[in-house]
């Protein structure tokens, strides 16, 4: 029998990771719960000042999304590293960057996509103007895959270290900042009725750069973490 084609292998690993996530629901619900909790706590702490909340809503939602993404990053490779599955993936006859991309896609589907789906409700709760809500959804749709992709490089570098958590935050957070800036600037611009295509193109450029480069970098980093 022949080995699977690249796309079949990609889909196979993606499905495996989704199955694993489904069977570990509690673990993957954690970042989403964190996202919702952080955002609902803001109005309680700041007080019922609708204008203020509506003004800072994009920032709150994006910072919460960024932290929730960081919280979930470790799960991309951790369990595979611990039980030896990662060794087997590295020794697979398929190219490792492709397998990394499959794992990151699965990670985004279980952690990024839920954030996208609950964000309109949270935006409404904070009283964000209608025209900004669409832009919020768009930036989260483009932005969260970038968070997962860049994060995968950091996790790949730190997965072999016994206490890699702090190092991971230090490595990854600076790389997340540009996305935060462009995303919140796009939402603010849209709320003020400005043309924000520049910010969106910039985010899209980040996304395509991350899709094409980060799996290669993460695969190389995993190889280093293994030896």
């Amino acid at each position, binding site marked *: 029998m022949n080995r699977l084609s690249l796309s079949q292998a990609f889909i196979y*690993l993606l499905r495996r990771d989704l199955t694993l996530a489904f069977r570990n629901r509690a673990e993957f619900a954690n970042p989403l719960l964190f996202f919702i909790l952080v955002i609902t706590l803001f109005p309680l702490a700041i007080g019922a000042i609708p204008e203020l909340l509506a003004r800072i809503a994009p920032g709150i939602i994006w910072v919460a999304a960024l932290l929730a993404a960081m919280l979930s990053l470790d799960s991309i490779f951790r*369990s595979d590293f611990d*039980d030896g599955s990662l060794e087997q993936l590295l020794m697979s006859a398929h190219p490792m960057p492709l397998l990394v991309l499959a794992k990151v896609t699965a990670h985004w589907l279980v952690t990024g996509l839920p954030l996208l789906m609950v964000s309109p409700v949270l935006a409404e709760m904070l009283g964000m103007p209608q025209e900004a809500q669409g832009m919020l959804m768009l930036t989260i749709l483009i932005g969260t895959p970038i968070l997962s992709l860049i994060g995968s490089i950091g996790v790949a570098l730190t997965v072999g270290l016994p206490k890699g958590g702090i190092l991971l935050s230090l490595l990854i957070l600076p790389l997340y900042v540009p996305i935060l800036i462009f995303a919140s600037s796009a939402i603010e611009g849209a709320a003020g009725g400005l043309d924000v295509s520049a910010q969106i193109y910039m985010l899209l450029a980040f996304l395509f750069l991350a899709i094409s480069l980060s799996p290669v970098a993460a695969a190389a980093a995993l190889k280093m973490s293994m030896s």
Partner: protein
Amino acid sequence: MSDTALLQINNLTCIRDDRVLFEHLNLSLAAGQMLLVEGHNGCGKTSLLRILTGLKLPDEGEILWQGETIDQLAADYYEQVNYVGHHDGVKRELTCLENLRLVQAMGKPSGVDLDDALEQVNLYRYGDTLMGSLSAGQKRRLALSRLIVTEAKLWIMDEPFTSLDKSSMASFETMFEHHLDQQGLIVMTSHHDVEMVNADIQRLNLSQ
């Protein structure tokens, strides 16, 4: 049996934390031969095996497969290698069959039916059981069944007999002998006495 060496170890040195585990190691292995790596704990058996799999880089020297270094061959080498490491490399949250399907998807599947493979490792009725609820020995048997469901010439095994009972050990030894008869190669470490009388075994003791 052909005398040409398929796997060659040239001048291999491995250093860990300023300790030389082994140096200037030279070895060659032909089709149908087995290399049994021996030595006390911490003498570098696992390191040697991981260098052979390409997961770890040697401090000096090179590994040749059919005359080419394994770095150059990369995927072409991995297609011919099956590795069973310290860790079983199976997911607790997946069933036995799901695990085996994944193994096949990532490697080069042999024509063997998955149910037959499970029967061979004495896990026939456990196809739909989650790995997490199996015993350590059963997990090990499933890990070893990757040797059956994928096709590879070189088997590299790190303590394959850990937590196995006597009868399973005997049946795996038969399987290994069969692989050697089919011109396969085996590199393994084992603390258990290997009772494969008909096999062409090279022993390498790293403690000396």
